[in-house]
């Protein structure tokens, strides 16, 4: 049994066979010529055959898809044999370039042209590059890039997954996600948790496993074992039995001694909100409004926004819905709001800061929120992302007041906000810790980078201390203003106990994690949680903080979490 340690990001123990995500297609060398003895006519015929094959494959996939996915696949299929793309390549072949290099260059120029047109066309530029890679793969006789298709469910192994890959991932076909790169806050981790798939990231060496190898994946321990033995088979069977128990959340988050910790859901829109309500969420702790704006080249109207917000509010009548105002920038660029040429976008004009450079968008969003609130029964709280100072908090509170919003708050993601929480909370009604960005900024470690996975965990004692300081700031302010957590940290049951012990008042997470967090939380008293928080804060490293806390929570092992 060969073992591959990694970082567990989504719990679950399963056994399945490996399907490797094909490696990205490498660029054919510049100036690569047709091999001697191949005529331009034959080469062009081969190119057309490859383009037809890619067209047929995409077209066949479109036939099985539905909705937007179908439309995109149909359009992409047509691009594969598009005369503009193929004639451009054929001209280069006639001048002696190899077919692979010719289609590569033709694809580049078409994609660049679309990119320069902006808006909808610019979004299709990446589709052209995808088609180009598929044609090169067909010419080389290697598997097409993208998630492999298979009639039986498999363990998907990849270097890392991009947001575009995860969008085409069929949760009925994928048993678990394993990546050699990526970090605990990567897109792979987030999508795995939202789909409820076991996942391990940063497992060095897994990309060398052969297709068809049987592996055991433990998404809590962060381990992959090739050719598992009977004891691991028994562990996977036991998980399958407990998994069903962990699917149900009673709807009340509490410690063993009755200290209430409302468990809320992170949602992106009305559909998510309905699903979260069905899973028992006690409200919404993070409504990411940028999903209403993404893929738009201009700002949606106030009425259009209000309708989108109302669809979330309506899923939680009489309950709390915390809405985060537009968080564009860094990994979520928006053409009408952010500058894509910033050298350091994570430290750039993003979140609340876009109001400095493009005033008006935030005012109109607040207007839309107020409008939606009037038409619904939810208890609407509104917070701004990327607040760094009390001055910004005060300004946001006054903008909310002008719009008629009663409960303004801030996200604590920038370490300066945690350090000055008392002053900030004098200005607003609540704070919510965004642990993903707080970790990235406290540790100066990019969320997406695999080599920094060990730095990029909210178990870092420095991050836990910033959480504690935010709670202390709220107490010092004197009005017991709520401090919640809405980052991925809240979805880790062991960390949820630590956060509760640190004095966090609510936990918001992907709805699928609610039951597991509730199950663990109700096994400890508040005093025990406080002890565990002290223990974690005293640990010299993130690894020890996690190990020490987990050791005191045997229920985690029993439940396979």
């Amino acid at each position: 049994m060969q073992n591959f340690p990694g970082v567990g990001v989504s719990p679950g123990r399963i056994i399945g066979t490996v399907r490797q995500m094909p490696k990205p297609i490498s660029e054919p060398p510049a100036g690569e010529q047709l091999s001697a003895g191949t005529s331009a006519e034959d080469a062009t015929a081969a190119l057309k055959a490859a383009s037809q094959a890619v067209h047929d494959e995409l077209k066949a996939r479109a036939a099985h898809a539905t909705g937007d996915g179908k439309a995109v696949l149909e359009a992409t299929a047509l691009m594969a044999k598009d005369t503009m793309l193929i004639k451009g390549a054929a001209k280069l072949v006639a001048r002696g370039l190899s077919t692979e290099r010719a289609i590569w260059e033709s694809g580049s120029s078409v994609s660049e042209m679309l990119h320069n047109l902006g808006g909808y066309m610019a979004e299709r530029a990446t589709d052209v590059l995808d088609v180009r890679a598929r044609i090169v793969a067909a010419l080389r006789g290697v598997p097409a890039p993208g998630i492999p298709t298979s009639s039986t469910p498999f363990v998907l192994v990849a270097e890392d997954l991009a947001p575009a890959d995860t969008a085409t991932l069929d949760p009925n076909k994928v048993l678990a996600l394993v990546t050699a790169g990526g970090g605990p806050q990567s897109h792979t981790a987030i999508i795995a948790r939202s789909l409820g798939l076991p996942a391990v990231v940063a497992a060095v060496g897994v990309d060398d496993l052969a297709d068809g190898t049987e592996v055991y994946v433990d998404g809590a321990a962060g381990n992959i074992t090739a050719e598992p033995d009977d004891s691991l088979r028994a562990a996977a069977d036991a998980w399958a039995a407990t998994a069903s128990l962990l699917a149900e959340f009673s709807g009340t988050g509490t410690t063993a001694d009755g200290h209430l910790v409302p468990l809320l859901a992170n949602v992106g829109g009305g559909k998510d909100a309905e699903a979260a309500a069905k899973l028992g969420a006690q409200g919404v702790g993070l409504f990411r409004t940028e999903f209403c704006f993404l893929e738009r080249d201009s700002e949606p109207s106030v009425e259009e926004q209000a309708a989108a917000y109302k669809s979330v509010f309506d899923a939680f009548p009489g309950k709390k819905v915390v809405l985060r105002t537009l968080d564009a920038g860094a990994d979520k660029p928006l053409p009408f709001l952010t500058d894509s040429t910033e050298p350091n976008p994570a430290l750039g004009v993003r979140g609340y800061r876009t109001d400095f450079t493009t005033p008006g968008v935030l005012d109109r969003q607040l207007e839309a929120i107020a409008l939606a609130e009037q038409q619904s029964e939810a208890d609407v709280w509104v917070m701004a992302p990327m607040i760094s100072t009390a001055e910004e908090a005060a300004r946001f509170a006054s903008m909310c007041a002008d719009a008629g919003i009663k409960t303004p708050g801030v996200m604590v993601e920038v370490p300066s906000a945690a350090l000055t929480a008392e002053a900030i909370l004098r200005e607003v009604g609540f704070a919510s810790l965004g642990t993903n960005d707080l970790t990235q900024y406290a540790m100066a470690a990019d969320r997406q980078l695999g080599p920094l996975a060990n730095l990029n965990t909210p178990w870092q004692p420095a991050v836990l201390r910033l959480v504690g300081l935010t709670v202390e700031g709220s107490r010092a302010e004197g009005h017991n203003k709520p401090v919640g957590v809405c980052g991925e940290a809240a979805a880790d049951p062991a960390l949820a106990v630590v956060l509760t012990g640190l004095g966090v008042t609510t936990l918001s997470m992907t709805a699928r994690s609610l039951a597991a967090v509730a199950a663990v939380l109700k096994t400890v008293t508040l005093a025990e949680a406080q002890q565990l928080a002290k223990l974690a804060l005293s640990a010299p490293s993130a690894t020890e903080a996690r190990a020490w806390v987990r050791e005191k929570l045997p229920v985690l092992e029993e439940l396979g979490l």
Partner: protein
Amino acid sequence: MPERIATIASRSGLHARPAALFAEAAGDVGVEVTIAMQGEPADEALDASSILSLMTLGAAKGDVVVLRAEGDGADAALDSLVKLLETDLDAE
């Protein structure tokens, strides 16, 4: 050379799904069809069966385009394509 004038009826213009449907239809008529914005010279017309060309044309709802084709069946082909352009394909 037979030609026809058509007004784009699809709400999103000749983008996305309408462009895909039109390009596919233009590729299936058996004659080469070109498309240009009204007033543009005929020699700058684009291949109507190329979805990428249609996207660069950037025709919006209400824009008037000229379709041209030559050879057997050109008239029938143009008539069917005009009909398609003058249908709101986003509504289907």
